[in-house]
């Protein structure tokens, strides 16, 4: 494979103007505000943009709204991981010369517009899962978490899930933009109501209104940007099922392939990583992902995250924004993993800023643990 390390850089990131509960703004409003803000962060104009990427709506809809005519267009939509996978696609497109300034946007009024995306009647899920009430992520992901508990021990797995929930909330308390900032004790976690057993309320991500965007460009154009470029070292993507009942192994995501591949393409190892941004749709997602990525072995994640190791001050920095569990989660949260990674590498994170991080691994998960995208970002 061609060595693409540091051929492209992320030069602008931002959220939409307001996130959390924003009753009067549509999906597209969040897309556009985030695009505006990310371009300003990059010191670039909408006129510079010639590659357009999104998920959740067509780039036809988005480009018309933004008033641009892209020379490269990509609506890859494989769930919340899409915006991580777009990094890889932009890297390929820019290196192939199809575009040189790519804009990737997300916007979802997940809280204020609660309509569930309707499936196509002809799809297998409409016949073989939804009639049984397999509707929504908490129910689907619960299948996987229960299986994990069976394989590795219920109390052991539960403690790992609690550690993740409590540690992530501590990070959120340091992020002014976080939605949930109340103290959370272990008792609060264990006493929170059941949603879909084995998931308590505090195992589940938020449902908020939010948008986000980033600008990714060639090494050449990155020189014109306002801020230091955040380099893309390497990336990988995959998926192995759509319906949860068809998942080959409920305790292993395809991060088992994309993690090692992204690290190898980046020329770095697990030990080199200063910050891990891991899609936390559920506490369980984090456990399965850390194992699949190879930070620890199968069944070892509860030990790996024990004693608040991922909390502020711990020796494994993870989800420093407060994550989908406590900062924001509009529906397809992957975008926000990128925003935090870039801000930490640039040193813009205020009270939650890590000490001079150089390398960040991002792993997005989409669908019903169906797809993953892994990428490694670096700053000089």
């Amino acid at each position, binding site marked *: 494979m061609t060595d693409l390390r540091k051929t492209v850089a992320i030069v602008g990131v931002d959220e939409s103007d307001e996130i959390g509960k924003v009753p009067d703004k549509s999906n597209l409003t969040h897309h556009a505000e985030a695009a505006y803000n990310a371009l300003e962060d990059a010191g670039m104009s909408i006129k510079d943009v010639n590659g357009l990427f999104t998920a959740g709506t067509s780039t036809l809809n988005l480009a018309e709204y933004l008033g641009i005519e892209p020379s490269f267009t990509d609506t890859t939509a494989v769930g919340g991981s899409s915006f991580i996978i777009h990094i890889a696609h932009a890297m390929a497109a820019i290196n192939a010369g199809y575009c040189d300034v790519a804009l990737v946007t997300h916007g979802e009024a997940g809280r204020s517009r609660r309509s569930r995306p309707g499936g196509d009647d002809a799809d297998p899920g409409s016949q073989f899962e939804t009639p049984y009430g397999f509707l929504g992520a908490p129910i689907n992901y619960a299948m996987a978490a*229960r*299986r994990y508990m069976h394989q590795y021990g219920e109390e052991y797995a539960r403690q790992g899930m609690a550690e993740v929930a409590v540690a992530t909330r501590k990070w959120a308390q340091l992020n002014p933009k976080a939605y949930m900032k109340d103290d959370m004790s272990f008792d609060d976690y264990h006493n929170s109501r059941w949603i*879909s057993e084995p998931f308590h309320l505090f195992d589940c991500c938020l449902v908020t209104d939010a948008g986000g965007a980033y600008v990714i460009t060639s090494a050449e154009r990155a020189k014109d940007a306002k801020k230091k470029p955040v380099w893309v070292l390497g990336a990988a993507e995959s998926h192995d099922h759509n319906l949860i009942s068809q998942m080959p192994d409920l305790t292993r995501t395809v991060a088992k392939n994309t993690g090692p591949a992204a690290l190898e393409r980046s020329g770095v190892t697990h030990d080199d990583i200063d910050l891990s941004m891991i899609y936390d749709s559920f506490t369980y997602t984090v456990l399965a992902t850390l194992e699949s990525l190879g930070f620890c072995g199968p069944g070892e994640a509860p030990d790996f995250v024990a004693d608040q190791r991922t909390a502020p001050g711990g020796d494994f920095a993870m989800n420093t924004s407060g994550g989908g569990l406590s900062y924001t989660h509009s529906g397809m949260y992957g975008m926000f993993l990128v925003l935090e990674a870039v801000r930490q590498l640039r040193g813009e994170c205020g009270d939650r800023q890590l000490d001079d991080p150089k390398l960040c691994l991002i792993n997005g998960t989409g669908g019903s643990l169906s797809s993953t995208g892994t990428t490694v970002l670096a700053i000089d």
Partner: protein
Amino acid sequence: MAYNKPIPVPQGESDVYWQKAKEHELWLRKCNACDNAYFYPRDISPCCFSKDTDWIRASGKASLFTYGIVQRAPHPGFVDDVPFVTAIVELEEGPKMATNIVIDNPTFDNLQIGMDLEVVFEDITDELALPKFKPV
């Protein structure tokens, strides 16, 4: 009260499955290239990408592979059912399928992964019956 949960819409590849379900029989597709049954029904097998496939009648025996107990209804049709059990079961013939476990007062204690199950059918409309499973 009228049945108001999502209702399956049979497709060409699944007409036989739903017709047999209406007769309270569970039928699967089998790949003749490798002799394995698979789920859900497809004309071309997912194991070998083979068109040499048959329909076979399943025994209706299964074991519990994993499950969740749903406390918050995900759709108005399920409000009167909570708590109810969503499950993935492993059929005796090998394939896994999504279903519900028919059981009163579900708990982690009375639902043991690996427990034996058998198929039962719920007639949901004049044309359709839904295969579910209950502990043996």
